[in-house]
């Protein structure tokens, strides 16, 4: 089957999803990111790889952390970064997505970083670029609808590898609103490909998708049972808008059952790490004592995210 992320030599030319990427490519990204971590620790935090290239940040949906870390990453690669304020741009005036892309291509764009509320929007752009014969322009998905957030998935893998070294002995729990989470999907595919033997999903039935068992994920509705003996706990953000609907009774009720308190965390292994893609809702999905505690690696995740995005952009831009 044709994988739109790979060129005819099997090299990564767009990053659209962690799904369908071979372990060798995931590992190459993580290894390259390790080299970029060193660049970020220098006084001169810049290498000339993408000098003269233009990176367009197309965020059709709000995001501060992801957009900022992509911008920092591109700048550390010496690229020129253009942030489009989509809400005030032509899209708001009725221009179609692909017309916007054509216009940016006419401005000599080299790489698009795309966040979109619709699942599949980055695929549509990649496919369009192929049709118009612009194999030299690359797309990186920065989150599309409920579908995928591959750079978050990869930075989570980098974080896990950094602290746990080896994927093949781990028990990883993902907790919360997996149904609406593109992060969870990207994590599950990457964890599975990298050889994690046991991935668990923990949450209320209303927030867990039906397909999880098909992905080999073990489902738990009881938080304490799900966390038992885990090496890694990935908390997901509970989006405020979910709490008022039919899916959940209330934030307080949710926290009682699925909030990560120090007592709950004690069920996991003593050296378990706690991750969160941010932004965190303290007191909703995570207790402050855990978020600020010694097992939390939430801020290192942000730092690793810059190096991982540098790795992704430099790999795709070179292929």
């Amino acid at each position, binding site marked *: 089957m044709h994988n739109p992320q790979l060129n005819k030599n099997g090299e990564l030319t767009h990053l659209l999803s962690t799904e369908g990427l071979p372990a060798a490519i995931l590992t*190459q990204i993580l290894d390259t990111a390790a*080299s970029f971590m060193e660049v970020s620790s*220098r006084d001169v935090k810049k290498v000339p790889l993408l000098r003269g290239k233009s990176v367009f940040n197309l965020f059709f949906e709000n995001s501060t952390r992801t957009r900022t870390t992509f911008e920092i990453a591109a700048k550390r690669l010496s690229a020129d970064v253009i942030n489009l304020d989509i809400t005030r741009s032509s899209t708001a005036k009725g221009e179609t997505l692909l017309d916007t892309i054509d216009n940016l291509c006419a401005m000599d764009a080299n790489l698009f970083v795309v966040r979109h509320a619709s699942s599949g929007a980055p695929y549509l752009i990649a496919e369009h670029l192929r049709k118009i014969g612009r194999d030299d322009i690359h797309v990186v998905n920065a989150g599309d609808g409920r579908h995928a957030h591959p750079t978050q998935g990869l930075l989570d893998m980098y974080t896990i590898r950094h602290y746990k070294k080896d994927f093949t002995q781990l028990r990883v729990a993902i907790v919360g609103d997996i149904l609406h989470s593109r992060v969870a999907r990207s994590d599950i595919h990457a964890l599975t490909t990298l050889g994690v033997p046991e991935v668990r999903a923990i949450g209320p039935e209303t927030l867990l998708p039906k397909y999880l068992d098909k992905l080999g994920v073990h489902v738990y509705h009881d938080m304490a049972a799900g966390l038992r003996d885990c090496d890694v706990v990935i908390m997901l953000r509970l989006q405020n808008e979910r709490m008022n609907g039919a899916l959940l009774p209330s934030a307080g009720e949710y926290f009682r059952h699925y909030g990560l308190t120090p007592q709950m965390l004690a069920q996991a292994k003593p050296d378990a790490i706690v991750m969160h893609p941010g932004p965190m809702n303290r007191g909703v999905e995570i207790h402050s004592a855990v978020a600020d505690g010694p097992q939390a690696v939430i801020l290192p995740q942000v730092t690793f995210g810059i190096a991982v995005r540098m790795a992704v952009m430099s790999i795709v831009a*070179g292929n």
Partner: protein
Amino acid sequence: MTLLPDSLPDAEAQCQQLAEAIRPSLSKNPALVGIFSGGVWIAERLRALLGLADEIGMIDVSFYRDDFAEKGLHPQCRPTTIPFDVQDRHIILVDDVLYTGRTTRAAINELFDYGRPASVQLAVLADRGGRELPIDKSFEAWEVTLGEGANLVLESNPQGLLAWRLENA
């Protein structure tokens, strides 16, 4: 002259030769920076042979190469580590083979992102000619002429000893 694979010189002996060539310059307290992979192996030997106090630096030039647009990013890059302050230091870059000079150019550029060295010299085990840039070595153990299709590769064998291998494209 055609170089026969079985007449390749002993790379370990050449490391000692290279160390002796560098020894007169030790009064400047130089620091060694090896270029991956071969240059790092050689720099480790030079450091031991010359009794230098500083750990060696290691450079992977993948992020500074001039053929990124043609070849893309090298699939296996390793972190550069410079464990000493480059500012005002006399640096000796170490590589296995000096050929076009492009790797040396990339390494010098990378080095300068760590600071302004007092001087940079280049020590190589083999100089095979064929320069495409105005770059020359300061110390060498072996000058050799090879055909354009030939590739001279330094390897570390399972016993950890360095040895040359000649590839013909």
